[in-house]
């Protein structure tokens, strides 16, 4: 039944963030806002404390007060350095 399904989210990490988290992808559950996500990251990954990154949801960079859609792909993006 729909309301017992878990909201599974894919969290991707890149660059320095991935290096500090020691992973590039993890599945997380039941997070509905970027604020909630940030609080969870602070608890789960204290090693990211001084690391700068933006957050993308479904491949678009979002602000801190954004909602996170059900089943979204979330990505933690340190400053870009391509080129």
């Amino acid at each position, binding site marked *: 039944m729909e309301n017992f399904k878990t909201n599974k989210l894919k969290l*991707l990490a*890149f*660059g*320095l963030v991935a*290096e500090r988290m020691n992973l590039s992808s993890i599945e997380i559950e039941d997070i509905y806002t970027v604020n909630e996500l940030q609080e969870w990251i602070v608890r789960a990954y204290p090693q990211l404390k001084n690391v700068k990154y933006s957050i*993308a949801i479904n*491949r678009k960079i979002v602000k801190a007060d954004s909602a996170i859609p059900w089943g979204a792909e979330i*990505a933690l*993006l*340190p*400053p*870009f*350095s*391509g*080129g």
Partner: protein
Amino acid sequence: MHKPKNIFVYGPITPDKIAEIIAHHNDKTNIGAHSIFLGQVRADRINNKTVTAIEYTAYEEMAIQSAYEIREGAFEKYELICLHIYHSLGIVKAGEISLFVFTSSKHRKHAIDACEEIVEKIKNQLPVWGKEIFEDNDSVWKVNVD
């Protein structure tokens, strides 16, 4: 108008590949000007160590989408006939080329202005990361300053 295209190539962008792309425009006789930007890996000295290569990683799906938006924006703003963007993934050694932007137009102004703007956007908007690798295999995440 156009579809998202893969912009990534594994390893360096070779001069031969660049020549091939240029030669490919030989039958587009409405083109009067091409503007090309090439990003080359520098052997920078950082903390008394020399960079020997950069290893590039990307959030590929997002980068391809970003490149598509940059591309569509350029075609809307400038009178471009052709536009090609290639970026390396993986290891690119110092002296090798990791970014290729190629714009073509009838008159030079559009190609030149578009190329410059696209390079700027690629540096700012494309989720790509470079890790600078030293002689001793130590490494540091690249910070874009230019």
